[in-house]
């Protein structure tokens, strides 16, 4: 180890090379795994250019992606912004996969590369591997192979059925992607067998195909459908919150390949669902880890003072939180909040005040900050993390206050950083990080099987938050295309059960 410390001296602004990168990685590993006890997937670091970074952006951060115009659109916009200097690129992109892939930009200086390694290859990596949501809902080992399958499957579909047909289908599926997530029951999320199962399904269909079934009498005879509504809903598995799942399994007119494509889009949506719920914690974890690691490296003399200042410069701009009346204010910065909360936990564990002992009796003064943090990283998501760990001290430090907006009259300040306000602010902030509250609650409730096969959806409206009309109608039109018959969405007040508004979309003419 001493040999390495002798050879690796990171200076400010210095260029990187592969040997140094390797040495820096080993140094960080010693701190992150040895001292902080992180648990990570094996890492694969890939050095890329700015253009490749733009590529990676456009395919929503996955290294393999099927083709669709929306990715081209994203690329064109990002490229335009980047070229005109309106936006700089991220220093890194990290992928929740096993091995964990970290893209780093060639333009970074050596100090930046060290920061990026600590941040992504250790911070994010640890979070991906240990956080409960990721463990339960994503399959890091299978995602790359699955995307490979998805890409080639969709390419084959384009060849077979035409690009236009595939594009229409993907447009519709993308519109429903955020409603293509199973939030409650845990279905099987192993992606490894997906490809095999798709092939088996095809083989089975071919093997058991018998044209005679079509000619059997009785199929067109009197309907033997259960007319009892409750029984019908039970048979259809309704109500169903996962629209894509329902369409894949139950839509009457889809071809097998179309069901498979819906399945692919659904799997991708599901893969990203934990990231939506843990954005603040994930970034906070990575920021906390890089901050700790860089400081330790500086103490050990790997980073010289200049490099340390270079690091601090970019660190502070990442965790900068402008006030609400600042022109730069654009909401709470998840990096800033996450990092502040984790530093706060460290403070409570090591130097608690009397107040902390009352609010956090189980961690105050325990001295094991990193242990508590690892526990929090593993078992919480943004919403529950805030509900559990946002301390009065931090509320005072950030001077958080809550305002109530009824959509019409002036805004009212509901709570500020005082004894009466702490719990209110904590609850309101946790709610604002709760994906389930932020996204509309939409379910398929019934299908009119005896009539015109209209699909009935319901949006349960909380606090009067209706859907954006224009978009809702476009999405419904996509839904009607997939379902094949009419679709109606009713917006129902969650408390009074009163129907506030309905949207309709007609089936496309066939």
């Amino acid at each position, binding site marked *: 180890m001493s040999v390495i410390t002798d050879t690796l001296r990171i200076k400010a602004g210095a260029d990187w090379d592969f040997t140094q990168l390797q040495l820096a990685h080993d140094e960080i590993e010693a701190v992150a795994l040895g001292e902080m006890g992180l648990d990570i997937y094996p*890492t694969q*670091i890939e050095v890329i250019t700015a253009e490749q970074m733009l590529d990676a952006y456009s395919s929503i951060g996955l290294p393999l992606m099927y083709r669709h115009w929306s990715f081209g659109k994203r690329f064109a916009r990002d490229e335009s912004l980047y070229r005109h200097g309106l936006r700089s690129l991220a220093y890194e992109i990290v992928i929740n996969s096993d091995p964990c892939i970290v893209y780093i930009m060639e333009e970074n200086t050596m100090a930046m590369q060290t920061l990026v390694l600590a941040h992504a*290859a250790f911070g994010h990596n640890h979070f991906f591997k240990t956080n409960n949501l990721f463990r339960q809902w994503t399959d890091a080992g299978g995602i790359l192979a699955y995307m490979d399958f998805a890409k080639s499957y969709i390419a084959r579909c384009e060849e077979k059925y035409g690009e236009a047909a595939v594009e229409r289908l993907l447009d519709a599926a993308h519109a429903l992607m955020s409603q293509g997530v199973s939030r409650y029951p845990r279905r099987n999320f192993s992606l490894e067998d997906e490809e095999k199962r798709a092939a088996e399904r095809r083989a089975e269909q071919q093997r058991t195909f018998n044209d005679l079934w079509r000619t059997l009498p009785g199929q067109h005879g009197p309907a033997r459908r259960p007319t009892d509504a409750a029984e019908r809903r039970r048979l259809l598995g309704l109500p169903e919150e996962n629209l894509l799942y329902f369409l894949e399994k139950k839509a009457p007119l889809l071809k097998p390949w179309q069901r498979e494509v819906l399945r692919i889009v659904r799997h991708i949506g599901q893969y990203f669902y934990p990231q939506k719920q843990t954005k603040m914690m994930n970034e906070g974890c990575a920021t906390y880890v890089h901050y700790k690691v860089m400081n330790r490296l500086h103490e050990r003399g790997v980073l010289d003072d200049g490099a340390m200042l270079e690091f601090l410069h970019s660190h502070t701009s990442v965790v900068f939180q402008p006030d609400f009346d600042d*022109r730069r204010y654009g909401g709470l910065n998840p990096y800033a909040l996450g990092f502040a909360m984790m530093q706060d936990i460290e403070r409570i564990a090591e130097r608690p005040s009397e107040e902390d002992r009352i609010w956090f009796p189980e961690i105050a003064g325990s001295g094991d900050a990193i242990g508590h943090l690892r526990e929090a990283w593993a078992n919480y998501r943004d919403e529950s993390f805030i509900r559990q760990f946002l301390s009065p001290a931090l509320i005072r430090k950030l001077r958080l206050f809550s*305002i109530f907006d009824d959509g019409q009259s002036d805004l009212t300040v509901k709570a500020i950083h005082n004894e009466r306000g702490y719990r209110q602010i904590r609850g309101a*902030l946790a709610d*604002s990080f709760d994906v389930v509250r932020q996204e509309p609650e939409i379910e398929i409730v019934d299908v009119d099987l005896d009539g015109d096969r209209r699909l009935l959806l319901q949006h349960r409206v909380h606090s009067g938050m209706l859907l*954006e009309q224009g978009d809702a109608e*476009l999405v419904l039109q996509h839904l009607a295309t997939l379902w094949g018959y009419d679709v109606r969405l009713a917006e129902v007040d969650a408390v009074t059960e009163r129907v506030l508004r309905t949207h309709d979309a007609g089936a496309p003419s066939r």
Partner: protein
Amino acid sequence: MNIIDRRLNPQGKSLANRQRFIRRARKQILDAVREASAKNGIADAEGERIRIRGDSLREPQLHHTSRAGRRTHVVPGNKDFIEGDTIPRPPSGGGRGGSEGSPDGDSEDDFHFVLSQDEFIDLFLEDLELPDLLRRQISTTEEFTPSRAGFTTSGSASNLNLVRTMRNSLSRRIALHRPRGSDLAAIEAEIAALDAGEPDDERRRELNAELERLTRRSRRIPFIDPIDIRFNRFQNIPRPAASAVMFCLMDVSGSMTAHMKDLAKRFYKLLYLFLSRRYRNVEVVFVRHTHVAHEVDEQTFFHSTESGGTIVSTAFEEMQRILASRFPREQWNVYAAQASDGDNMPADNAYAVSLLQTAILPNCQYFAYLEVGAEEGRYGGPTELWRAYQRVAQAGHAIAIRKVNHRSQIYPVFRQLFSRDRSTREEAGQ
């Protein structure tokens, strides 16, 4: 840990996505391209920034409207608020503050991106086609590509084809029963064995004779004979190279203002771009005239002024001379575009028209006459030259005549002239 250097991986991974995107937004992009081209010259379009409306690119999602509902926000940086204070509602209902309207009045739905020059020109010149005239072929002198053409018995050593040569050698040796090295070695070994063991003179003599016979035979039949040798043969295939020459004729007498020259220049640029998409090799000849005509370079053509009268026929004479000396008819596609304010010496009109009909038009693929006017467009009726050319056109000759007063008319006129749709073109030819 692995470190992988991906920097040298093939670029443009998202090209297929980009093509799909451009196809998707084609109509809007086309409109935007037209609009952009009216503003600036086409040749300076290197990576044009395009703004399009976001309608067909909308990716709708179900989400809450921002205009209704009761919400609680938690925000940082309280300075002097206490519980129960009211804050006046921000004007646009945003409640967030911060972002200001962008200076050039873009709406949020607008979508900006950069088209590469090739993409720009492709879209710009889309649907345009060369007039359906005979496309003259192929200068034979231009370029040859060597292409493999079997094998030959003579050639340079570097073209030796080893496989063929050895195959011929082998079959010849088999056919002529050339003794193999292993046969000779076996006999020699047997002789050596006899030498070592008890003498058997009879056998030894036999073997010696056989050895000598075989050795002689293998000397007579060479391992590789000149007749075995094969060389790769290459043939020079003439590459058909369609070439075009574009004549720019312009009146530069004092009456042509800078504005008129600018119009003409834009038209020439368009024509040049268009031709260079269709032909691999496009030459441009600039002929300017007052009462005399000269071939000049581009700089002089557009920027220096001359004084003098205006005699159009001189330009035709000059063009005829250049055609005859440098551009033989069989090898070149000839395009000509004449720009003028319509002035000509009245006495010259008849001669110019006859020269046009007898010498110029028969040698041209296409002749366009562009009458450029002042921006305000004061017209005192058709000019002399216009009337003369109109008669030529009515007589059924391949000549297109147009009037242009303003920059923005250049591109529509150009499209009319080369539109793939014949009806538009003919209607324009009135």
